[in-house]
């Protein structure tokens, strides 16, 4: 399954992205109506929950951050035809590594500790992705399987660490002790929960864009995504490119995990990143694999989740409905991709 050929054709996708989102909301409205609630009231609550106050918006932006950062790495892989869905595990391990740094050197200076924790997260994510890359390139195992299955191992590793060395003694819940405040990501605007991690997301997007458009590596990615045989002919090494891109995506996902842990919870909690990696795949696809378009796509998901809670609170529609919306978005994105492929063939 070389999906990327058709993925690359998802260009000028604004219209399709909006149609996708519109259809999703329409279908979800039907589901809400079936449960006996008014979709209009529910969506009103959702909207207010997402944009109703600066705090709500900050919450949504924080939510969007890991989606965007890991979505960029995923998009770079997909553009090269590497279907890497290992972000889920890489984010979790990134969080684990950042936690280990924070707990090992609790008194480190802010300017040393936080970069070190970021670095630790990125390295852990890259290493985990590197394992998948080694299995894929070295042994020829399909990359979808290698990355997907390693996710489960990664999540178990995090759980194991929390039940063992990194766990908070006597907490009764698998979580680490609270970090020292010098490891808390500072807030951008005083009084708001918005942490500095949100600045990294747009930087990653711009970086991804520049990489694709202005570097020889980006050129190689675009050639390889269309045809591996053309990439080999052009003198690029497909295995080496695969390894580099997977390491890059792993580092970004690991960084996203570190930011989440240092910026939101100030501790590692089991399951802190559940679903992040898979949502990031949907965000990357919804953004048409275009690094800059991934920013609005990620924001959409972030605001959706922010609004979900108030929708539940005010209208009594379960917040898990948001997972339905996310799932449907994925479905419609894939359907739209399939239909473009049929038309272009």
């Amino acid at each position, binding site marked *: 399954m070389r999906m990327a050929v058709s993925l690359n054709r998802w260009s000028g996708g604004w219209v399709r992205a909006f149609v996708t989102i519109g259809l999703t909301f329409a279908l979800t409205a039907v589901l809400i109506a079936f449960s006996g609630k008014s979709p209009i009231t529910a969506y009103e609550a959702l909207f207010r929950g997402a944009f109703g106050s600066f705090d709500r918006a900050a919450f949504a932006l924080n939510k969007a951050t890991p989606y965007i950062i890991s979505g960029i790495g995923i998009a770079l892989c997909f553009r090269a035809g590497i279907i890497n869905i290992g972000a889920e595990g890489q984010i979790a391990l990134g969080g684990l590594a950042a936690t280990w740094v924070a707990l090992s050197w609790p008194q480190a200076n802010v300017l040393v500790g936080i970069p070190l924790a970021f670095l630790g997260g990125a390295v852990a994510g890259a290493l985990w992705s590197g394992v998948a890359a080694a299995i894929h390139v070295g042994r020829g195992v399909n990359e979808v399987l290698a990355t997907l299955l390693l996710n489960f191992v990664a999540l178990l590793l995090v759980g194991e660490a929390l039940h063992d060395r990194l766990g908070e003694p006597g907490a009764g819940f698998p979580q680490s002790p609270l970090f020292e405040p010098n490891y808390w990501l500072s807030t951008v605007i005083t009084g708001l929960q918005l942490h500095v991690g949100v600045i990294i997301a747009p930087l990653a997007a711009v970086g991804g864009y520049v990489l694709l458009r202005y570097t020889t590596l980006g050129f190689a990615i675009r050639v390889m995504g269309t045809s591996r045989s053309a990439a080999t002919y052009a003198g*690029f090494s497909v295995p080496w490119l695969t390894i580099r891109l997977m390491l890059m995506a792993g580092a970004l996902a690991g960084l996203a995990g570190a930011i989440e842990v240092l910026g939101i919870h100030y501790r590692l909690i089991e399951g802190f990143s559940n679903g992040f990696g898979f949502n990031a795949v949907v965000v990357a696809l919804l953004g048409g694999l275009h690094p800059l378009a991934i920013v609005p796509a990620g924001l959409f998901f972030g605001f959706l989740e922010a609004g979900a809670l108030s929708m539940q609170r005010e209208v009594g529609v379960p917040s898990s409905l948001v997972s339905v919306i996310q799932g449907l978005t994925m479905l419609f994105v894939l359907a739209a991709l399939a239909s473009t492929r049929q038309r272009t063939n």
Partner: protein
Amino acid sequence: MDGFSLLEMRGIAKSFGAVRANDGIDIDVGAGQILGLLGENGSGKTTLMKVLFGMVRPDAGRIVFRGTAVSGHDPKQAIALGIGMVHQQFMLVESMTVAENVMLGWERAGRWLAAAEIADEIRETSRRYGLDLDPEALVGDLSLGRRQRVEILKAILRGAELLILDEPTSNLSPPEVGGLLTVMRRLKAEGKGTIFISHKLGEVLEICDDVIVLRDGRVAGRRSVADATRAELARMMVGRNVTDPLSRAEQTPGVSLLSVERLNVVDASGTPSVSEVTFDVRVGEVLAIAGVDGNGQIELAEALAGLRSSSGRVVIAEKDVTRESVAARVAAGLSYIPPDRGRTSMVASMSIAENLAMRDVRRRPFSRAAWLSRRAIMANGSRLIKSYAIRAPSPATPAGQLSGGNQQKVVVARELDRKPQVLIALQATWGLDPGATRFVLEEVLALRGAGAAVLYISSELEEVLAIGDRIGVLHAGRLVGLFERKDIDLEAIGLMMAGAHEAKTGLAA
């Protein structure tokens, strides 16, 4: 004309935007008649046939088929009327048998597939038309020639009175072409009409009754084959003379530029596809290799270009590149024109300029350190578009929007502009019309004149004979003969291509 008229198309016109693909075309096909439809890529043949088959609505004109006016039809209705089309890309399911493929999407086969009846019918029809098909055979196991016959069989069983064959010989080996022509004669004898679309003048002259030449969406000429000559048809197609023998300066080859010693390639399943191939190509020399497709040509070319692992020794301009990567070989002065534009030599989604820089992008001026120089890439694109007369609106146009001939010009421009010491060309004129073919051959000879060594591999014997200073034959992965141009023995080459040398002399390599 013989018999009653089966098909009349009058004044067919169709425009796509500003392009007049068909501009008032009239054609007639009689029962039991084979009409050749000639024309360069983009001359309007495909559009005309799509109009006939109901895939495209014409802007004007009328179609009369078996005495009834036909309009507004779709392909399904066209089939019901008795028009069958065999596309260049076969529409077969490889994992199914011949019988299953025939039944697929055929209402008559019913919801509960009447497999046994259909199989009998296939045997019967296959015998009658000399198709030689076994209904139980898996399509995936069949050669391309056989698969094409399955398509023909499908059309006949669905009641086709008129068959459209769209460039049916372009991916067949010479013996398969012979087989197809035999089938076409049977179709003719059974009273079916055939429209035969082709670039190849020889085949058209051999099999057709009448021939119509299209150029720029109009009929450039119609002839009865009896009074048409190859040169005249070619002139009508391209509007200039392309059948004159290529002019080649006599030159004495110099030192060896490409030296290959005991090259062996083994494919993934462990079978050798190139065995013990040894040869030299010298300065200012073209070594042309003939052979039926599938005898190790692609493996040989890819091994030399560094795309496939091999054992043996490869030396380019006194530099041993046996262990070098693709990129290092390019840097050493090796250019390679691969056979397939679709997957290897061209990236359809990227711009013409990017395609022109594709194999040199990691060197100056196209990049510095890791950064692309988009300006240098575009400037190079504009320059090559001009100097190779590539018909393209702009260097930023996606390469996939170009016609096949212009795409190949892009590939040729890229590979020759490098001023290579050695050029390897494999099926470099595949799918090209005579004008574009001529262009490629002339460019290759110009490169020879400039002192490069050329390895020209093709299954078109005519081209091999026209271009080679020496001619070799590749059979079953072995280089079984090498002739100097002056000692060419056509019969011996033919026998070697067919593999007869082994039985006769036991000679190998």
